[in-house]
C-alpha cells in the first residue's frame, strides 16, 4: 500500500489514519445504537487512540542523535505545524479554555490573544535564527552564543523550572481523563497516563514525538470541532457557528440584563462545592480594564516565545525558510481550535440559561432541575450544583454553579448528542494533554542529557551512551512529574500560566538579544537569566503571601516584572563589561544569513 520514503508518503499515511479514525467513530456510534454501554465506549475510545500512538512511537524508534533530538531535521512545514499545534494545545486549552470564557468573558479572552499573538514573535524574532544556528536544544543556543558552561547551565535551570511547572498540570489532566474514561482511582490513573506518554517518546525521542503529535492533533481537532458544529446545528443557531452566533451573543446580553448579576452572600457560597462557579461576569461586554487585558496578553505572548518545548519544534524543519512558514501553519492549526472555544462557550451558556429553550434551566423549579438526568450525572461528578438561596423554589442565575471543565465535557450531553461524542471528547482531551506532556518531558530530558551531561560532564560520551542517559532521564522526569501530579496541589490552569511567566522572566531577553544585539555578552546573559528568574519568582512568592503587588501586576503576570528586570540587568551588565570576542560577533553575523551551513554541525 505504501511504497518508498516515509516522508514522501506523509499525506497518504495520515489520510488513511484520519479515515480510519472517522470509521472508528462510526463503528462506535453503531455499537451505541446496539446497546454498548457508555462506559465501554469511553474505554474503547481512550484505549484505541492510545494504542495507535504507542505503535507510532514504536515504529519511530531510533539510535541516531540527530533523529532523537531533532527528528533528523526533515519534518515538512505543514506536518510540523500540526505537531506544534498539538504540542502547544494542552489539556487546559482543550478542557478548560471554553469554561474560562464561559465564566469570565472578555477578561479571560486575553489568553486567546496572548496564546496566538506570541507566534508572531516566534516567527519574526527567533525561530528562523535558532534553526540556522543548528542547535539541538534551547540551552544549546544560549551556551554556544554566549559561551561558557554557566550560561548553558542557567538556561537549563530556567527551562526546567518553567517546563516542570507546566508538565505536572498535563500529567494531572491525563490522569483526570484516564480515571473518568477507564473508571479507576486518580492516583493510579496518573501513572496510566504517564506510561502512555512515555510510550510515545521513549524509543524515538523527537522523531517519535513528532509523528505521534501529528496523529494526536488530528484526533483532538475532530473531537473539538465535531461537537461544536453538531450542537450549533441541533440548537438551530446556525450551520457554521463562527459566522452565525451574533444573535445568540446578543440574546445572552439581553438575558444578563433581565436576570442581573446578583451577588451571593459568603454564607450561601460556603455551601457550594469547591471548584464550582456561577456566572458573575458579562459574556461579550468589555469587563476588564485595558491594562488588565493587555498585561495578561503581553505576558502570554512573551512567554510563548520563550517556552523551549515550542521553540524546539522549529529545529526539526529542513530549512530556515521552512521554519518561518511552519510557524504560520502552527498558528493556523491552533486558530482552528481557539476560534471555536468562544463559540462553544456561547452555545453552552445560552442552552443553559435561556428559559425559552427546552434545555434552559434558569426559571424552572429547583425540584424539576434536580430531576433531570444529565444534571444528576454531572452533579455526581461534582461539576454541577444548584441551591435555592432565596427560598422561592425557582432556579435563579446566581443559584446555578458549574465546574469549568463541564462546558466542554457536559455540553454535548445537555444538547442531547449521543454518548459516542462524549467518548470522542475524552479521547481528544487525552490527546491534547499527552502531546503537550510529551513535548515538555522531552524538552527537559534533552536539555539535561545534551547540555548538562554531554556538553558539561562528559563531552567524550558516545552516541549510544548519550541516548541511554536521555531515555533514563525521560523516565525519571516523567515519574517525578506524575508523583507531584498525584498530590493534586494546584489547578490545571494556574500552573500553566505560571510556566509562561517563568519562561519569559528568564529566557525571553537572553534569546532575543542573542540574535538581535551583537553587543550582548556572557556576563549580561548570566545576569539577565539569573536576576530575571529570581525576581520573577520572588514577586510571585510576595504576591502569594499577601503582598499587594504594584502596577497592577498580579500572580498571573509576574513575568512582566521578571523580564523587565532581566532586560535592564542584561543591558547594563553587558555594557559595563567587555564586548564579545570577534569570533562570537562573526557567529552572530552568520546566524543572520539564512543560507549556508548551520553554526553547529549535523551531529554535535
Amino acid at each position: 500500500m505504501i511504497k518508498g520514503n516515509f516522508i514522501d508518503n506523509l499525506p497518504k499515511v495520515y489520510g488513511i489514519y484520519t479515515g480510519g479514525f472517522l470509521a472508528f467513530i462510526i463503528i462506535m456510534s453503531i455499537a451505541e445504537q446496539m446497546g454498548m454501554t457508555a462506559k465501554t465506549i469511553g474505554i474503547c475510545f481512550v484505549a484505541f487512540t492510545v494504542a495507535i500512538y504507542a505503535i507510532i512511537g514504536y515504529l519511530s524508534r531510533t539510535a541516531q542523535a540527530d533523529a532523537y533530538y531533532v527528528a533528523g531535521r526533515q519534518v515538512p512545514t505543514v506536518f510540523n505545524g500540526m505537531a506544534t499545534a498539538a504540542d502547544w494545545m494542552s489539556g487546559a486549552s482543550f478542557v478548560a479554555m471554553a469554561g474560562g470564557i464561559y465564566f469570565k468573558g472578555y477578561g479571560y479572552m486575553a489568553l486567546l490573544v496572548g496564546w496566538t499573538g506570541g507566534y508572531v514573535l516566534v516567527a519574526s524574532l527567533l525561530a528562523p535564527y535558532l534553526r540556522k544556528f543548528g542547535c539541538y536544544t534551547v540551552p544549546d543556543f544560549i551556551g554556544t552564543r554566549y559561551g561558557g558552561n554557566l550560561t548553558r547551565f542557567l538556561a537549563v535551570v530556567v527551562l526546567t523550572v518553567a517546563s516542570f511547572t507546566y508538565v505536572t498540570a498535563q500529567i494531572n489532566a491525563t490522569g483526570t481523563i484516564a480515571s473518568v474514561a477507564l473508571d479507576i482511582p486518580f492516583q493510579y490513573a496518573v501513572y496510566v497516563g504517564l506510561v502512555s506518554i512515555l510510550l510515545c517518546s521513549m524509543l524515538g525521542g523527537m522523531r517519535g514525538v513528532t509523528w505521534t503529535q501529528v496523529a494526536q492533533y488530528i484526533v483532538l481537532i475532530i473531537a473539538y470541532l465535531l461537537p461544536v458544529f453538531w450542537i450549533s446545528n441541533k440548537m438551530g443557531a446556525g450551520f457554521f457557528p463562527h459566522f452565525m452566533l451574533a444573535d445568540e451573543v446578543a440574546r445572552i446580553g439581553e438575558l444578563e440584563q433581565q436576570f442581573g448579576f446578583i451577588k451571593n452572600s459568603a454564607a450561601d457560597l460556603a455551601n457550594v462545592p469547591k471548584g464550582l462557579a456561577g456566572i458573575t461576569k458579562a459574556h461579550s461586554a468589555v469587563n476588564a480594564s485595558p491594562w488588565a487585558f493587555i498585561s495578561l496578553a503581553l505576558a502570554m505572548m512573551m512567554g510563548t516565545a520563550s517556552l523551549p518545548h515550542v521553540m524546539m519544534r522549529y529545529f526539526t524543519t529542513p530549512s530556515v525558510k521552512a521554519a518561518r512558514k511552519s510557524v504560520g501553519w502552527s498558528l493556523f492549526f491552533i486558530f482552528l481550535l481557539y476560534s471555536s472555544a468562544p463559540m462553544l462557550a456561547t452555545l453552552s451558556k445560552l442552552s443553559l440559561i435561556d428559559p425559552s429553550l427546552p434545555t434552559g434551566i434558569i426559571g424552572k423549579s429547583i425540584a424539576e432541575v434536580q430531576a433531570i438526568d444529565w444534571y444528576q450525572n454531572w452533579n455526581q461528578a461534582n461539576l454541577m450544583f444548584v441551591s435555592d438561596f432565596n427560598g422561592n423554589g425557582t432556579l435563579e442565575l446566581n443559584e446555578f454553579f458549574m465546574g469549568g471543565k463541564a462546558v466542554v465535557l457536559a455540553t454535548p450531553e445537555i444538547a442531547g448528542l449521543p454518548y459516542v461524542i462524549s467518548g470522542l471528547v475524552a479521547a481528544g482531551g487525552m490527546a491534547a494533554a499527552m502531546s503537550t506532556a510529551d513535548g515538555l518531558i522531552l524538552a527537559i530530558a534533552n536539555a539535561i542529557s545534551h547540555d548538562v551531561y554531554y556538553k558539561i560532564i562528559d563531552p567524550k560520551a558516545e552516541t549510544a551512551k548519550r541516548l541511554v542517559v536521555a531515555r533514563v532521564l525521560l523516565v525519571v522526569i516523567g515519574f517525578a512529574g506524575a508523583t507531584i501530579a498525584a498530590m493534586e496541589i494546584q489547578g490545571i490552569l494556574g500552573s500553566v500560566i505560571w510556566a509562561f511567566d517563568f519562561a519569559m522572566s528568564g529566557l525571553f531577553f537572553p534569546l532575543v538579544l542573542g540574535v538581535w544585539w551583537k553587543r550582548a555578552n556572557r556576563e549580561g546573559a548570566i545576569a539577565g537569566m539569573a536576576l530575571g528568574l529570581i525576581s520573577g519568582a520572588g514577586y510571585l512568592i510576595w504576591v502569594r503571601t499577601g503582598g499587594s503587588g504594584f502596577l497592577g501586576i498580579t500572580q498571573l503576570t509576574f513575568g512582566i516584572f521578571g523580564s523587565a528586570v532581566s532586560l535592564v540587568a542584561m543591558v547594563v551588565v553587558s555594557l559595563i563589561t567587555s564586548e564579545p570576542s570577534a569570533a562570537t560577533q562573526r557567529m552572530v553575523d552568520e546566524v543572520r544569513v539564512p543560507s549556508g551551513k548551520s553554526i553547529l554541525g549535523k551531529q554535535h
Partner: protein
Amino acid sequence: MSKQAQHWEKSRGLLLITLAIWFVFSIGIFLFGAEMNEVTGPFGYPLTYWFTCQGSLGAFVILIFWFANRQEKIDEEFGFSERGDD
C-alpha cells in the same frame, strides 16, 4: 556597505513593520476596548468581542505568512535563499 549588512538592514526594516502590525492587533485595539465594543463588527458581533474571538487571531495567522513571504523575497534579492524544498 557589504551585501550582508544591506540584507540585515532590510530584514530589520521588515521586522519593525511586522512588530508594528502585531502591536496594533495585540495591544493597540484593546486600549480602546470599551469604546470599540459599542460598534457592530463583522458577522454582527460586538467589535472588540469579535477581535478577541477571531479578528486578532486571524490577523496573526495572515501576518506570519505575509512576513515569511516578504523575508523570502529579501533573501532572494541578496542571493541568500536556500535551495530546495519546504
